[in-house]
């Protein structure tokens, strides 16, 4: 499709000419589809659930699997994900391990700490 040097494409003009201009924005997915796409990010085996091995986390200080798995069936379904998203205010409720170290008075993170002490798998 040819493009004018200023960036205008003939296609854009033709779209207007043919009445394809956007009078409305009705093609956005539904709420359930948006949530479904979000679930798909984690649901590697596409079974409709996020299982512990699919949950991305490096250490349990983060809001973990059990925070979302409210019915305790060891998997997160779409309703649990939606409830978590609706009810969890971002940037509140937890601190990073680094921040906790500082609060405990461990001092600045040294190069040795950084190199020798990767984040623990199980603590706190």
């Amino acid at each position: 499709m040819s493009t004018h040097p200023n960036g205008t494409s003939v296609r854009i003009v033709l779209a207007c000419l043919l009445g394809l201009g956007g009078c409305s924005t009705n093609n956005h997915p539904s709420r359930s589809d948006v949530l479904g796409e979000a679930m798909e990010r984690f649901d590697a085996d596409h079974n409709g659930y996020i299982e512990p091995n699919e949950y991305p986390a490096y250490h349990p200080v983060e809001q973990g699997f059990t925070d979302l798995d409210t019915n305790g069936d060891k998997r997160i379904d779409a309703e649990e994900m939606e409830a978590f998203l609706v009810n969890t205010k971002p940037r509140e409720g937890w601190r990073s391990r680094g921040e906790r170290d500082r609060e405990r008075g461990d001092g600045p993170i040294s190069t040795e700490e950084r190199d020798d002490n990767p984040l623990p798998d199980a603590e706190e």
Partner: protein
Amino acid sequence: MRTILALIFGAACAQETPDAQGPPNILLISMDTVRADHTSVYGHHNNTTPNLAHIAKDGVIFQQAFSVANESAYSHAALFTGRYATELAYPNYRTFALPPEASTLPEMLQAYGYQTAGFIAGGHVDGGFGFDQGFDTFSAEIGYASFFSTAPKALAWLNEEKDPEEPWFVFLHSYDAHRPYKSIGPFHHLYGNTQPSLLSEHIANSPKSSEQVYDRIYYEEEDPRFFEHVSGSKIMSLDTYRTLQSSSESIEGQPLSDEDVVHIQDHYDACLTYGDLMLGLFIADLRERGDLDNTLIIVVSDHGEDLLDHEYMNHRTALYDSVVKVPMIVSGPGFPKGETYDGLVDINDVVSTVALAAGAKLPAGSRDRPLQKVITGQAPAAEHVFFEGVLDMIGVRTKTHKLIYRGIPLDTPDYIDGLEKAELNNGHFQFFDISTDPKEQTDLLLASPETDLPIAKSLKAAMVQWRGSIPQSSYRLPSDAVKPEVMEQMQEHGYWDSETE
């Protein structure tokens, strides 16, 4: 060719004018701190913004869209007025605010019968800085909030308060991508698959530590006011960053590895993804309500974030594309679906775009270059876009090159004269060939002083002409205008200090 396109468009799109369907509703969305190249809709390798992609399917992606500044207050002032920030107030970020006499986008729409509502995520876009002008309803969070907080309030207003017989304007804002790069639940470590270091985790999650990184070295002391110990200056001072740079020779810092930098950037991408999801849910709710019929949607950002592509991690110290190239997606009346536009545009084009859609008269001083006309050739695309940085810098960019002038305060007497007389090799300029160096890694004035010098000179001439065309304002923020709790939150994030005028 342009004339032909204009004639065709003029006939073809007449049905899109407000007379045919009534004035469209206007939804202006500002995703704060989102750099275009980290959105998947602009090609990033992480699938950060699928919901922006959905919006784009119904409209036009502006591939070469720019902010005109590198901080929220300057940028949102431009977004609301179609004018450069220093046209509106004295060029000092510490006293900057939108003056009462400024004619703003919501005021324009109010005059044409629109119901206007703003849902602000906090920070510098607060009413105390003049950003509530023209809003019938204005809600501002304390701190740096997410769509999580602002979108439900906008939805409630649309559900419960607006008059269904009148058109509406909603401004929706979020800081989801703003530091700290800290998301929730499984989104927090959405990207990346290597064990992060404590250092990268700390910097990603701390509100202010990212300001203590220079050239991939982290300089930390127990006291977060570290900068004051060393330099006696404040975090909003350019001297702070200069001091950090010079201190790097005498103070031992903690080096960030390549993996650390990638991990911090993955955190940013995760926050961006979470914000995109919250926005997607909001748009879905609007669709289900039928509120998207005859609605113009404009999604932009006010600036990006350098994320250590260069010397610093933030946005306030640079005018690289990482900081000024932003997403801009527009859908609704007057805009075809699923198209891209590759000409230069900037956020000063938004006011006239909305004015044309609403059938409103443009406020005095606003740039008259509506995007509906630009995409169809009825109005020329920009040959240059210009930038104002809050820390003594300005810039100009074409589609292929950029010139930055830095280190001279914008309120210096005879600034323009000094700029005009300045030699390109005096150390105050940077010059990049973006066509071959899109990441702006090689300053051609340093690498090869004679290379492309004619282009650099022409950009400097354009810069001089631009500055000369801008009437400089003397307006300064009244000292008692901002609520103490807003100021406190901004101090927490390194934006202000206790001795602010």
